[in-house]
């Protein structure tokens, strides 16, 4: 498959935290969701890709694109607090070859951003939209977004998801976005990159990721079956756990259901250790 971004054996060591030889691809024309618990290394990875954090050159391959071809939305904008929305556009323009003033104005209007408002006076949602307007105004081939939907209300989240789908609709552009609001991903993401504790646990299509596991529940469980469960939890009236879909036949007596991305994260987090040898 054609890729827009390839990350290969990305390592970064901090005193208390380490990215352990991370590898994954962002396929061209699709939305990739980057998920994992807080502190798993999502932002560090994204910053490494963007060159904000120093890593070995060979670890990040932009597949023929330039760093200017990436549109970026971070947790908090890099723009000075005192800039107005209009000034931000004007100040960013010289840095991008493909900057399109009318495109920027179009998005500013579409997002109901007040041109005279200062960055510091914008709400969290408005700050995301301001960055998004900038990211979409220089003919980017890849959007990298760090938690773009956190802190947004459901209406704004839906808007952001719409924009991302619109962005990839010609099949030429790609999106990589980290989030812990997995409901957004559940629908629009084509690929999932799942990181836990600085290690990639899964990288591939979302459908396969969700198909891979099932949730089981019952009253009691045989001891010889427990090694096949992930993140088992006992409660007053029974237990619940996750299993590999491949093991379904072993659990024929239990109620078996599909799992959501959220549940996968929770079960694997509860079990951490078992997940690593998959």
């Amino acid at each position, binding site marked *: 498959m054609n890729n827009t971004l390839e990350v290969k054996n990305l390592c970064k060591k901090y005193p208390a935290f380490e990215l352990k030889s991370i590898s994954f691809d962002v396929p061209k*024309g*699709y*939305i990739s969701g980057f998920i994992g618990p807080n502190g798993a290394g999502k932002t560090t990875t994204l910053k490494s890709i963007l060159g904000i954090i120093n890593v070995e050159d060979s670890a990040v391959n932009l597949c023929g694109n330039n760093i200017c071809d990436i549109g970026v939305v971070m947790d908090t904008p890099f723009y000075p607090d005192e800039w107005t929305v209009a000034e931000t556009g004007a100040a960013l323009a010289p840095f991008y070859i493909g900057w399109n003033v009318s495109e920027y104005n179009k998005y500013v209007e579409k997002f109901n951003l007040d041109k005279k408002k200062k960055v510091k006076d914008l709400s969290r949602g408005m700050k995301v939209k301001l960055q998004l307007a900038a990211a979409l105004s220089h003919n980017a081939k890849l959007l990298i977004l760090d938690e773009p939907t956190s802190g947004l209300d459901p209406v704004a989240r839906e808007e952001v*998801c*719409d924009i991302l*789908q*619109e962005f*990839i*609709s*010609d*099949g030429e552009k790609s999106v990589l976005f980290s989030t812990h609001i997995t409901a957004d991903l559940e*629908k*629009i*993401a*084509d*690929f999932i990159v799942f990181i836990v504790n600085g290690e990639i646990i899964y990288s591939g*299509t*979302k*459908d396969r990721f969700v198909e891979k596991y099932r949730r089981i529940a019952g009253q009691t469980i045989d001891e010889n079956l427990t090694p096949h469960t992930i993140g088992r939890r006992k409660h007053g009236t029974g237990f619940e756990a996750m299993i590999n879909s491949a093991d379904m036949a072993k659990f024929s007596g239990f109620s078996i*259901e*599909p799992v959501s991305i959220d549940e996968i994260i929770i079960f694997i987090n509860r079990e951490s250790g078992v997940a690593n040898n998959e």
Partner: protein
Amino acid sequence: MKIILSNRSGEPLYEQIKEQIKDAIFSGELAQDDMLPSVRGLAKDLKISVITTARAYSDLEAEGLVASVQGKGCYVLPRNKELARENALSKVEEGLCSAIDAAKQGGITREEIFETLTLLLKEEKL
């Protein structure tokens, strides 16, 4: 053609799309040579992933209901009467199986099942 997705049915989204397009083809709502919406267009409309939509289309293609032309999209193949019949038959079977299950659970006898079925068929004039 309308496609309505349910988040609660437990049935995978690509399966839901496939079944609904299939129904539209078998009912004649989609005729031979009709174009299906583009994969990316439909994904955007339904707010679901491109891959999920593409999977529904490739399943339909594998079942011989549609064909895709590179760069143009998917169009409906001539309706295969035998296939439509087979599809209907498997739905009948499915329905009867769940009727039998319910009968077993409720202690309904064989005779009572036949009786009910005959009555229902008479009402429908089948």
